[in-house]
C-alpha cells in the first residue's frame, strides 16, 4: 500500500513534567502500515528517555483492530525493558470493551481520564 500523506498517522505529543502525552488524532487505527508507523514513532519516544513515562490518549479513537492491540503490547515490552511505564486514558466505551474481551485491560494500566493517568504514572 502506498504511503500517501493521508495515510500517515497523526500523533500530537507534549510533555507534562516527566510524562510524555501522546494523543492519537485519527478516528481509526486499522491499517497495518499506519499501525507500524505509530509503533515506530512511539518506540522512538521510549528509546530516547530513561525510565520513560508515556500517556496514550485515545479520546479521538473510535475504531482499532487487533493489530493495534499487538502494537501496544510490543510497546509495553519496550517500556518494560527500559523500566518505563505507560497509561492509557480517555478510551471510548466501545473500545474499552475490546480491551476487556481480550483481557488486555488486565495487562495495561487503563485510566478514565488524563488526570488520573498522570497520577498513576507519578
Amino acid at each position: 500500500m502506498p504511503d500517501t500523506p493521508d495515510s500517515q498517522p497523526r500523533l500530537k505529543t507534549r510533555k507534562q513534567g516527566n510524562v510524555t502525552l501522546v494523543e492519537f488524532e485519527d478516528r481509526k487505527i486499522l491499517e497495518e502500515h499506519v499501525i507500524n508507523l505509530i509503533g515506530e514513532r512511539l518506540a522512538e519516544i521510549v528509546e530516547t528517555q530513561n525510565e520513560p513515562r508515556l500517556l496514550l490518549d485515545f479520546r479521538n479513537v473510535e475504531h482499532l483492530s487487533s493489530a493495534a492491540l499487538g502494537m501496544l503490547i510490543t510497546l509495553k515490552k519496550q517500556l518494560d525493558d527500559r523500566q518505563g511505564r505507560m497509561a492509557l486514558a480517555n478510551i471510548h466505551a466501545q473500545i474499552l470493551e475490546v480491551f476487556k474481551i481480550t483481557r488486555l485491560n488486565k495487562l495495561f494500566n487503563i485510566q478514565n481520564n488524563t488526570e488520573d493517568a498522570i497520577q498513576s504514572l507519578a
Partner: protein
Amino acid sequence: MRSNRSHEPQARSAADFDSRPLPHQVVISSDLSAAREVEEEILRKACGLGYSPDCCFAVRLSLEEAIVNAHKHGNKADPNKKIIISHQVDGQRVVVRVRDEGTGFDPGELPDCTAPDRISLPNGRGIMLMCAYMDSVCYNATGNEVQLVKEKC
C-alpha cells in the same frame, strides 16, 4: 453495551456453514484498500437500515479482522491472489463471507489468546474478537472462507 458477550467464544464448524450464494459478491485483488471499500458499502447499508452504533461497530471490527486475516494469513499478502467478499444486508441481519485463495486452516486448533502464557503475545486476537462481536462465525471445510452473521440490534 452488551453485558452477555462471551469471553470464551468459539468459531463454529463447517457443518454450520451455509454455502447458499449471497446476492452481492465482489472479487478483489488481495489489496486491503479495495476490501475496505466493500466494508464501507456494507456498513453504509447497515447504518441506513437503522442498525445501532454498537451493532455497526461490531460489524466493522469483525469485517476488518476477517479481511486482514484473508490478506495476511490466507493469501500471504500475495497481490496476485484474490479476496472474494459476498454479502447480504437486510432489515434482519448482516451476512458476510470472506474467502481467500490460501490453503485454509483449522479454527479449532487456535490457542486461547487470553491464557496467562499467551496474553502478552502481540498476535492471535482477530478471530476471538470476531466471535465475541458476531452472533455466528463459522468456516468452510477447507478453512479459507469465513461466514459472519450479525443480527440487527
